[in-house]
């Protein structure tokens, strides 16, 4: 097996509606936020983890390729060499997949963490508010008693630098299958993600994003 190519996609993620990629709350702080977003722990800048982008792309593609029912809602990890999902996104090491693992090879897609673009990082350092605290509320249908909860979101307009690498491996076919899967899986995943949502609260308006200025490794424009 040999790596015969590296496709690199770079560009910008533009937040279209408030984006909430949750950090989880492992400690309770008095006056602290209940539903904080994930931030760089050193400079407090919000970022989008590569795992969120990759996981959401994978999930949307599993729906598209009709794998959800087959796997009873679980992540596809059939490990078959020609499985579009396992080949591009990787599969866990189960005894079932170990035989085919060498034919399939490692995950082809590497999605980097998306940090604020230089311009937005500068604005954050200068004190511009990039994050809002939105209050959401559920009402008791009879008494109208409120159950408010705050949620932290990145405000619309903020931009993140985006990068992903797609490896083309020669597993005996001269890289033909990987080449085909780039359009069929990776670019399709980005299209689906743009039309769906990222992070939490997507069904009530959060997490709409857009990709801007997407380019490949030779600086050629990529249109979704």
């Amino acid at each position, binding site marked *: 097996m*040999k790596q015969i190519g590296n496709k690199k996609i770079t560009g910008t993620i533009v937040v279209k509606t408030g984006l909430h990629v949750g950090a989880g709350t492992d400690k309770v702080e008095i006056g602290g936020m209940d539903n904080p977003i994930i931030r760089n*722990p050193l400079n407090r800048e919000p970022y989008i983890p590569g795992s969120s982008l990759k996981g959401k792309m994978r999930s949307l593609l599993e729906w598209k390729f009709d794998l959800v029912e087959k796997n009873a*809602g*679980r992540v596809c990890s059939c490990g078959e060499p020609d499985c579009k999902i396992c080949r591009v996104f990787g599969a866990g090491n189960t005894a079932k997949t170990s035989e085919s693992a060498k034919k399939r090879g490692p995950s082809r897609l590497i999605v*980097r963490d998306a940090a604020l673009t230089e311009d937005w990082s500068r604005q954050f350092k200068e004190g511009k508010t990039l994050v809002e605290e939105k209050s959401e509320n559920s009402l008791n249908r009879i008494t109208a008693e409120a159950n408010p909860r705050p949620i932290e979101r990145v405000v619309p307009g903020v931009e993140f630098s985006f990068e992903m690498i797609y490896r083309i491996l020669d597993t005996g076919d001269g890289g033909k299958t990987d080449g085909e899967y780039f359009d069929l899986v990776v670019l399709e995943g980005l299209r689906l993600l743009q039309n769906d949502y990222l992070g939490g609260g997507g069904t009530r308006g959060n997490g709409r994003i857009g990709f801007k200025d997407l380019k490949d490794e030779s600086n050629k424009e990529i249109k979704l």
Partner: protein
Amino acid sequence: MTLYRITLRLCSPLATPLKGDTIWGHIAWGIANHEGDEGIGEFLSREKSGDPSLVVSSAFPTGMLCRPIPEPQERTKSGLSAEEYAKIKLNKKLKYLAAADYVSGVAEMSGDEAGSFKAVPVLHNTIDRSSNAVLEGGLYMVQEEWAGTADWDIYVLSSDPAERVQELCEWAFENGYGADASTGKGKILVKNSPEPVEARKTGSVYMALGPFVKESNTIITDLRGDIFIRSGRLGGDFASIVVPYKKTVLLYDAGAVFTSEKRLGYVGKILPNVHMDPRICQSAFTPVIPIA
């Protein structure tokens, strides 16, 4: 062999520490990816021969080196002052020292704690595709390491020209470094071309710059160092096999100090037979520099 210094730029958090044996493993995978079975076979047979072409250190904040493990000293003086106690405590906490004190060609740095990592637990989850809720048992925590400084140095002792060393380092990090590289961790860029540096010419006390094993037939004496257990995990297309772990080995860590009357450039060796697949081995050698 020439000792090169290469500066790496960390562009994301890490899930795997930048230790010499792991970096060497990534270089080996880079060769396998680019030159295929033949290239990696040739490289490994040379490394195992006892005349290695590439020995790699752990990474240190740029311009710094690990602190040598000090010789235990009996405290003879009683009734130390508060300042003297404070100094002893401070020295114990030091992790790095200026590299310029030990190798020439490196700009002098200050700030002993520069570049320490901050460990941050991050929650991840797996979503049930049918219900869009978190899958039963799908919530898990991963420890991420965020570096306080972006630039880190590694030292590579090699018989190859600088251009080849740079190429190997770029191959090593092009697909990310360590665990979770496919989901954003371990984005590392090679910042500069390898710069030759020179260790001091004399001295019989040496410091190791990365993990290693002590060979029984070497003339290393008075070895002091920290040890750690390494249960290496296989990468690439070996990651999904039934047993993706190597056998556990015990390694001395960077900063170990020993004496040797013979002039040394590196210590340790490649450990074979660490997995049922005979091709798999474990790097257990590291560059060393004289410090006294």
